[in-house]
């Protein structure tokens, strides 16, 4: 049913694009990628007048479905396609699939505590807060890390995303890495069952941010770009090297650079170990067929994403508060795209 719906919309949108561009590429997927893609594709079209790119931000799940049904030229997803999804796409007649990292971002931990301008948290304490084991701000475990801070004797309100999202995946992936209990009790996914008894869900980054801003004593995870643009106070998180850091594009970039060997099956870049590494980060991926039937379109696709994962487009990403891909990951993207047979 969803597919039909999506197709109807796709048709509507496609027909709404005026002009007679020689090639119109269509893609669908991640909402997180959308601000970057719309700017980047616009710039690409400006430089290549005969190419139009039409991207629908319907969510990663929908993007994978449409890509599998081959109703779009490319999909975009915050979590790479898994073995089952790949098998479905391949047996659907599309052939083997390439997954290319194109966007990098971080997740920061924002909070609302009047009079507390600096809040330090260790991974274990953060996990215990989200597990509901630490329920008050003046808990000894938090007080020990923040000597001198006036921590109130009030309940911690744990805020999370209520809509399925790549941000939630990255955050729960991080908690699963740092807390065995989280891994077995909750796990990592785009939507999870939140164990803390004080947990409330907000829809979208703006929903979570709104909840945090309006509830004294709240803590929540928000996409880095959103936190920067809205100047929210964020907690300093201890990384694997023992340093306390606020989330920043530099910290995320440093973290990504420590894992130049990311693959679609081993893609996690959370809890990385270097002094400058911010520990909660993740990629968003573009999925393409390695052996496209229409070679001219395939050639355009390859050229488009070589540009998108390259320096020029990544600079555009950084103006939108995404984190530009580190050089070694750009090289990885180029290597993957080189496998496209066009």
């Amino acid at each position, binding site marked *: 049913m969803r597919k039909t719906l999506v197709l109807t919309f796709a048709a509507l949108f496609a027909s709404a694009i005026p002009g007679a561009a020689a090639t119109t590429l269509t893609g669908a997927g991640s909402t997180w990628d959308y601000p970057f893609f719309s700017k980047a594709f616009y710039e690409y079209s400006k430089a290549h007048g005969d190419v139009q790119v039409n991207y629908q931000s319907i969510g990663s799940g929908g993007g994978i479905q449409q890509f599998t049904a081959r109703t779009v030229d490319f999909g975009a997803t915050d979590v790479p396609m898994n073995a089952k999804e790949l098998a479905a796409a391949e047996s659907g007649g599309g052939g083997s699939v390439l997954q290319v990292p194109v966007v990098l971002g971080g997740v920061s931990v924002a909070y609302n505590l009047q009079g507390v301008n600096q809040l330090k948290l260790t991974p274990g304490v953060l996990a215990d807060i989200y597990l509901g084991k630490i329920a008050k701000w003046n808990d000894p475990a938090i007080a020990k890390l923040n000597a001198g801070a006036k921590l109130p004797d009030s309940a911690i309100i744990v805020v999370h995303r209520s809509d399925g999202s790549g941000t939630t995946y990255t955050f729960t992936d991080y908690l699963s890495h740092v807390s065995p209990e989280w891994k077995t009790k909750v796990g990592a*996914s785009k939507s999870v069952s939140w164990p803390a008894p004080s947990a409330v869900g907000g829809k979208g980054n703006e929903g979570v941010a709104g909840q945090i801003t309006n509830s004294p004593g709240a803590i929540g995870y928000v996409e880095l770009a959103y936190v920067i643009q809205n100047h929210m106070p964020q907690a300093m998180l201890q990384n694997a090297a023992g340093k306390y850091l606020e989330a920043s594009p530099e910290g995320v970039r440093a973290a990504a650079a420590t894992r130049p060997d990311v693959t679609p099956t081993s893609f996690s870049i959370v809890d990385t170990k270097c002094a400058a590494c911010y520990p909660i980060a993740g990629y968003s991926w573009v999925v393409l067929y390695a052996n496209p039937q229409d070679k001219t379109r395939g050639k355009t696709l390859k050229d488009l994403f070589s540009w998108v994962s390259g320096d020029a487009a990544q600079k555009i990403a950084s103006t939108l508060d995404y984190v530009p891909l580190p050089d070694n990951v750009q090289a990885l993207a180029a290597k993957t795209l080189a496998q496209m047979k066009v």
Partner: protein
Amino acid sequence: MQRVTKGRNYAAIAALDRLFLIAIYAAAALFVLLVIMLFGSLVKGAWPSLLKFGAAFLWTSQWNPVTEQFGALPLIFGTLVSSFIAIVLAGVVGILAAAYLAEFAPSWLARPLSFVIELLAAVPSVVFGLWGLFVLAPFVRNDLGPFLQKTLGFLPIFSGTIYGTSLLTAGLVLAVMILPTVTAISREVIVAIAQDLREASMSLGATKWETVAKVVLPASRVGIFGAIVLALGRAIGETIATTMVIGNRPEIAASLFAPSYTLASVIANEFTEANGALYIGALLELGLLLFVVSFIVNGLSRLLLYAVLKGDRA
């Protein structure tokens, strides 16, 4: 007249009549067909979940996409309770406002007031949601909640930690959203009551207030009831505004200050990123439940109305 009738082609007119009849039957049948098809496609999509969880889907409380364990009880609870709060508040205020507009307000005031109320109905629900999140939720958390807790805190429904985004906030936002429906329709119904009734009542010596309370309102209660059922339907199905202010926690709590979750909100939140037949099936089964819940609520209110009317005649 004569000339026109003379030239009429009766066969053609009869054919046209038949065509018209077919057209209206088809239009009516289309609705039935649409409902059946919607129901059918929901059942089809929900099939994996229907098979796996069976009837237990209705009374289990876990909603865990990771382990793929799904139960809808807290969601049914949240949907019914938030709508109930809304309909009680909007029902009382709406009927009173309608009575004022129809019977008491001078026309220079009634017209612009009705216009403003109808304007309220045209505000998109996401705007109500934003208002609820940024204005109403802090108000509930800082002012209304503590006040209720201080005065009525002995009741379990006003106990516990006060959250800004809660069942109560959702109920309040929904009440504001359905208020125009209740008021506008009730007003129309009251205005339509025969003038004779009012005059008869007044001539018997009843005051204006007595006439409205004891004659006009009872006479228009079927229509008012219809307005309430319509408004309730909107409250049950409302998605975006509820999602923004209810806190989205699939849990049954006694307190109205606790976060909750509704059927429509879960679908809105999780559908775009759901994968796997079972997960999508469970979400579609929620849609099916929403369908069934609305159906039952509608049916019950009709029964109630029937009982009230029958009691009247006896």
